[in-house]
């Protein structure tokens, strides 16, 4: 497609991998330099396109993990078994390699400090990624919007951004972990899946009119939204990003 001046027209462009960060055994952050990147808002994503030698193309969406930072864009990718795109991104790409991407995309599942709070973020597994962009954007702006993150992972080793979340806690940010499958010795936080009782304990009350962002596998997001509505929260204040049965 030719470049056009039409506002919002998306174009594929080449992005160069500049850095790889291992986050957990199955998750890596890959940082790209994207020439002419116009900046993005926390919660937006990019589409990534891979083309095989025979011309076959595969396209996937990945949430942006980083706060706006010039032409650098970080994606955090979970390697899916039998995945068509994620194993290439996490295992094959090396610094200096280029891939095609387009973005930033989306305007609904976004948050900026000016929108205020209180903010309640609920993440299941790699659903933390767009919510981390919100937390990083908030921190980079020196914003102190009351923010609570309820983050469900299988085990402590599967917690993405664990150290950074601990470092950013305070100044209005509270992080609560739930570990569903296994817990380290002495674990005192939640050791089960997110349910309505847990949401009632962690989320601000409906009277405070919190804004919700929930991201994770579809069954996780369904459990969260169902629980929140039963607790009396406004369905219109709950924004969701479901990524299907297995993650992406």
């Amino acid at each position, binding site marked *: 497609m030719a470049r056009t001046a039409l506002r*919002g027209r998306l174009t594929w462009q080449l992005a160069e991998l500049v850095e790889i960060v291992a986050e957990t055994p199955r998750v890596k952050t890959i940082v790209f330099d994207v020439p002419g990147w116009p900046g993005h808002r926390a919660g937006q*994503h990019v589409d990534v396109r891979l083309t095989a030698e025979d011309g076959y193309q595969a396209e996937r969406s990945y949430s942006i993990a980083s706060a706006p930072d010039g032409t650098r864009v970080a994606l955090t990718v979970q390697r899916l078994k039998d995945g068509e795109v994620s194993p290439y991104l996490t295992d094959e790409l090396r610094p200096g390699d280029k891939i095609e991407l387009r973005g930033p995309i989306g305007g609904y599942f976004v948050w900026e400090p000016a929108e205020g709070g209180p903010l309640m973020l609920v993440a299941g597994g790699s659903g933390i990624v767009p919510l981390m962009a919100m937390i990083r954007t908030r921190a980079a702006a020196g914003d102190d919007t009351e923010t609570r993150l309820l983050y469900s992972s299988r085990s402590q080793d599967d917690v993405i951004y664990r150290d950074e979340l601990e470092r950013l806690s305070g100044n209005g940010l509270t992080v609560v972990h739930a570990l569903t499958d296994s817990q380290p010795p002495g674990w005192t936080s939640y050791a089960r899946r997110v349910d309505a009782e847990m949401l009632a304990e962690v989320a601000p009350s409906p009277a405070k009119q919190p804004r919700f962002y929930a991201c994770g*596998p579809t069954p996780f997001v369904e459990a969260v939204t169902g629980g929140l509505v039963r607790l009396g929260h406004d369905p219109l204040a709950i924004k969701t990003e479901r990524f299907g049965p297995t993650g992406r």
Partner: protein
Amino acid sequence: MDELMLDGNAIAGLLQEVFAVEMTTAIGTCGRCGAAGPVGAVHVYRGAGIVLRCPHCDNTLAKIVKNDSRVWIDFRGIQTLEVAI
């Protein structure tokens, strides 16, 4: 509950490719129940094509089929679409 259900966010890139504006914040009104809400919040199912359903009444809002060079959109379930320009 269908584990394959996604949100309007999931097809934001495709919609922007077609309409050349950000579409997940556009407000769609369901042709059956009349509920109005952002496109980013509709339910999306991906198979051979893409089906958009009303999150309130499950009405089929739109069906989208794409190949390498064209997109076909059946919009009959949507009453109105309000887009910022």
